[in-house]
């Protein structure tokens, strides 16, 4: 039974299966969108993990949920809701982190914002009756309904964010690891922090449309965290983060296509499994110095 559920239509002939995968336009769109999102999330996520802004990123992804719910309520395209709410959320977070010095105060403020976002999302969903089916896809994503127009939007957003990050890569890296010296050298540290949150908001908004608001992290955090574990070389780290995000997205989409289980589950589980493997290897490596993957004390 399980086998039947898992591998419907799988012929076990790779060429035939790939051909079958690309047979339907919705699947081509899903693969294209997934690829774009994975590249963008891999790069943005690497900087987010470096800057220890995972919590801020998570909050932005939660904010995407009321954004989408509000858009459906107002009869607007979901993308409008995602981008406007995530953009506003990023501005708010930038205000919070700009005005507060202590990390505990900042994280408490971000947490409060997150709770408010969830409550608002719930309110909008309640106001909009008959969204029950849509609620699942808002929270957990879907790859069935991605249109060519959405793919184009994603491509524009991804190209913008990647270009911005490429131009700012070195000063942003400098400001992230060594803010005092960067500031003394004339790097606009606060402006970069502000700009990065906006780029993060854009990435989250775009990624949410594919993975849903709750599973953004599968692509934004887990591949980046895994890459940071494997290497501390910056270029290699970004490349690895992108590679992992791409791999889990492609494999996840394929598995979802040939089975009845949702794509978010596959993408998240694959990314998580890889992260666990790297941590275990790292923990073993700490005991055996021949293995060069090192792990920090938890």
């Amino acid at each position, binding site marked *: 039974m399980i086998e039947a559920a898992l591998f419907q239509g799988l012929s076990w002939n790779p060429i035939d299966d790939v051909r079958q995968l690309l047979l339907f336009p919705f699947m081509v769109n899903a693969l294209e969108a997934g690829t774009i999102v994975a590249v963008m999330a891999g790069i943005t996520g690497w900087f987010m993990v470096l800057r220890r802004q995972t919590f801020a990123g998570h909050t932005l992804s939660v904010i995407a949920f009321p954004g989408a719910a509000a858009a459906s309520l107002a009869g607007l395209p979901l993308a409008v809701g995602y981008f406007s709410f995530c953009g506003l959320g990023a501005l708010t977070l930038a205000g919070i982190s700009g005005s507060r010095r202590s990390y505990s105060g900042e994280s408490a403020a971000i947490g409060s914002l997150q709770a408010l976002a969830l409550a608002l999302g719930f309110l909008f969903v309640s106001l909009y009756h008959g969204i029950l089916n849509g609620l699942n896809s808002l929270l957990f994503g879907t790859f069935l309904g991605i249109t060519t127009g959405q793919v184009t939007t994603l491509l524009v957003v991804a190209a913008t964010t990647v270009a911005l990050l*490429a*131009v*700012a*890569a*070195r*000063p942003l*890296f*400098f400001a992230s*690891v*060594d803010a*005092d*010296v*960067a*500031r*003394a*050298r*004339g*790097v606009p540290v606060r402006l970069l922090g502000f700009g990065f949150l906006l780029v993060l908001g854009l990435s989250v908004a775009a990624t949410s449309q594919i993975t849903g608001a709750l599973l953004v992290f599968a692509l934004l955090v887990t591949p980046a965290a895994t890459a*940071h*574990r494997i290497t*501390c*070389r*910056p270029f290699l780290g970004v490349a690895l983060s992108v590679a992992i995000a791409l791999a889990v997205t492609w494999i996840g989409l394929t598995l979802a296509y040939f089975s009845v289980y949702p794509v978010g589950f596959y993408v998240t589980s694959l990314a998580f499994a890889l992260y666990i493997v790297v941590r275990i290897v790292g923990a073993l490596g700490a005991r055996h110095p021949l293995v060069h993957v*090192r792990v*920090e*004390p938890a």
Partner: protein
Amino acid sequence: MTETSAITAGHAPSDDAASATDGTRAATAGASEARPECVRFERAAARVGGRTIWSEVTLAVDAGEFVAVLGPNGAGKSTLIKATLGLLPVSAGTATVLGKPPGEARSRIGYLPQRRNFDAGTRIRGIDLVRLGFDGARWGIPLPGLPRRAQATERVGEVLELVGAAGYARRPIGELSGGEQQRLLIAQALVRRPELLLLDEPLDSLDLPNQAAVASLVRRICREERVAVLLVAHDINPILSYLDRVIYLAGGGAVEGRPEEVISTETLSRLYGAPIEVLHASDGRLVVVGQPEAPFVHGDRHAHD
């Protein structure tokens, strides 16, 4: 607090007896420009959050000099460094750094901020941190194969050799000891061949052998690379034998001069406006007794400015 007038010595353009005894710096206020001045403060004051930290501070640091900034907690030692960098404008008087207003010569200054250690989870290589000191402020991505990139790699290697950090520069900096981290941070400050090096408590949180090693490294760099060094210290003793001059901040003002002139019972009593005694231990170490806060004792440093 703001009323406290400073006692200036050494470089003050006054006919104070102290400046007359200082043979090497008898010429003041633009009379002789044989050695270019790196830093010059003229009756400068600094305010942070509406409070005057120090005022009427007059001092000068010449090219290639090794100068220590001393004083009790909260006297404004880090504030002096920030004012030199142009991160904090002086609220009165004038400040000139490398012949320009502070902040306009930042690329010619190497800076090592206070209390910067990387926790064990920091997944950054020392060599990347040093490299950031070289071109981290530049926008865009460096493409492989450009001559500028090879030049950067060469300079980073050179400076790592200079501070003796080449052996561990490729390991994550969080895994290194305090002394190793400090050497890498000094390399980062030095990588652009600065004319002025601002080191804010570089010996803080190091054990005694590492304090001695880093102090002699800074002295060697100062002499060999012809860099002026302004070093904020809590304890003068590890660097005492290397110093050209001392700037002592206390009581809202500053005294500048040779170490033995400044760290004396008479000068410090005048600066604090309270009886202070400087004792000379048999091993050559100086002990200052009677300050409101004892800056020469290890382990009491928190709540800096």
